[in-house]
């Protein structure tokens, strides 16, 4: 039995057409999913790597694992073990495992100061074997802002405690210094009042000096002015006389120069004669000495002759005179 009879030709093979449409749509969607999955790395082979963290703070599934700034994997699971530690599994693209060594370290860092967490995996030592899937690596937390703040707090708090103790100690240096400053201030106040009195006295002295200056320095200045005027007169006279004097001095110097030249010429003429003169002088001296010797001999001879013999005193010998009162 036929329920409906399709009279329009356009409805012929309608089921086949609809089935083809649906099939194409499903195929298109499948292609899109495949393409997207391939782009997202869903079909890239990955190897699991494990590490243990003290706490699961800032760790959550899906945070990327980066190597040299490139994403090579992600955290896939977190589980608390029997000791209370957190067992963490990450998946790293297998093709990148050759870049990593077995002593690679996974660090939890922040992207920026307050950014999302990211796991950074280091290369490790070159001479170590290549990291293989299912291996266990070391985990550490990089210093974040909170930790830095905690460190600062840990260092500052003892200092603040010390400062508090120093400030609160009644016998401490600060309290004593403040006490001294207080006393000093009081003394300075006293000194200031004394200074005020001194200043009044100095004012009086200055008034007195001012009077004396008027009475004594005035005449002195007047005298100085007179002296300066006299000096000026002398200077003027010198200015008038000095050129003449200088001309005379020049003339004298010229004469002196000429005289020196004359003496120099004379000396130059005389110098060659000096050795001869010295020789002659030496000869004369020798002759004189010889003559004196002869004279002495003659005198000595005469002194032994009569009648001079008795008048020549004998040669003195023995100590010179000195008596008991010398």
């Amino acid at each position, binding site marked *: 039995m036929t329920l409906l009879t399709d009279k329009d030709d356009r409805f012929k093979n309608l089921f086949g057409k609809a089935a083809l449409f649906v099939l194409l749509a499903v195929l298109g969607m499948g292609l899109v999913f495949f393409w997207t999955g391939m782009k997202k790395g869903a079909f890239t082979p990955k190897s699991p790597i494990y590490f243990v963290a003290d706490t699961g703070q800032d760790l959550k599934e899906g945070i990327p694992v980066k190597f040299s700034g490139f994403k090579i994997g992600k955290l896939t699971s977190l589980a608390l073990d029997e000791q209370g530690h957190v067992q963490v599994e990450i998946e790293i693209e297998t093709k990148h495992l050759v870049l990593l060594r077995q002593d690679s370290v996974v660090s939890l860092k922040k992207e920026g100061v307050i950014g999302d967490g990211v796991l950074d995996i280091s290369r490790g030592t070159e001479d170590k074997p290549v990291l293989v899937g299912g291996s266990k690596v070391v985990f550490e937390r990089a210093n974040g802002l909170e930790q830095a703040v905690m460190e600062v707090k840990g260092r500052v708090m003892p200092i603040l405690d010390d400062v508090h103790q120093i400030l609160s100690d009644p016998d401490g240096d600060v309290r004593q210094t403040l006490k001294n400053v207080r006393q000093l201030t009081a003394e300075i106040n006293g000194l200031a009042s004394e200074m005020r009195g001194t200043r009044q006295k100095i004012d009086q002295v200055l008034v007195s000096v001012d009077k004396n200056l008027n009475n004594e320095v005035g005449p002195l200045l007047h005298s100085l002015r007179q002296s300066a005027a006299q000096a000026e007169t002398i200077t003027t006279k010198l200015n008038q006389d000095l050129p003449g004097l200088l001309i005379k001095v020049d003339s004298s110097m010229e004469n002196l120069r000429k005289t020196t030249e004359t003496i120099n010429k004379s000396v130059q003429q005389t110098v060659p004669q000096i050795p001869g003169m010295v020789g002659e002088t030496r000869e004369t001296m020798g002759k004189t000495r010889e003559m004196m010797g002869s004279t002495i001999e003659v005198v000595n*001879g005469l002194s032994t002759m009569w009648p001079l013999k008795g008048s020549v005193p004998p040669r003195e010998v023995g100590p010179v005179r*000195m*008596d*008991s009162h*010398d």
Partner: protein
Amino acid sequence: MTNSIFKFLLFCFLFSLSACGSSTPPAREPQLLEKLHAAEKDARHALNGGELQRAQHSFNKALTLQQSLDDTAGAAVTMINLGTVAHQLREDEAALAWLDKILLEKTPLYPADSQLTAAFRKAVILTNLGRLAEADTSLQAAEKSCDKKCGQRFNIDTLRARIFLLKGNAEAALALAQAVNKAAEAGKEEQANALRVQASAEEKLQRYADALAHYQAALEMDKPLGLSSRIAEDLNGLARTAKLLGREQDAAAYARRASLVEQTKDKSVLSAHE
């Protein structure tokens, strides 16, 4: 003609007379001895003329020559002379050093009379310096070497009298000085010194009239000797004793004369050197 012959004969007579009276001229001495005698002569001449520095220089020259000729006796005399010149130059420590070179010589190098003279002169210098104990020791050494015929006996006795007086023993000083004063062979200078010591001792013993007379006698003897400093001493002594005798006018006159002598004695020495 007769006159010419007479003159010729007179000339021959005088020539023969001088030839007979003269002896052969002495041979010239070796060079070093000649220099030594010249240096000694120059030193003594300079000392007599008051040129003490020149005398010192020439005596030093003579000493070097004597030592180079191994003339130890002559060197001892020259060292005494150098000591005397140093004393006159008021360099008493140097004078004592010269004399000690003779006195402290361990080997018997120098003659005994030189040692006696050195000891006596050392005692004089020490007495002048007021070092009486040392002077006494040195004088004792001189006394030991001096026998009765010793020429310096009277000098030693006068110095001993002086030391007694300076030590305050006026009686002993007086006795010793009187003995020297009476001995003519002591010489005028030492007699005058003894008279001065005698007068000073009498002054201390308050015999002022005797003291005045003896100061006067000392002055009379010192004047011909031309010794200014001793004349001044005598005049000062006269002034003191005259005053003690109450003769104020005389005392003032003596004091004034003493003052004039003291003021001019240094000038007179300087002018004598010119």
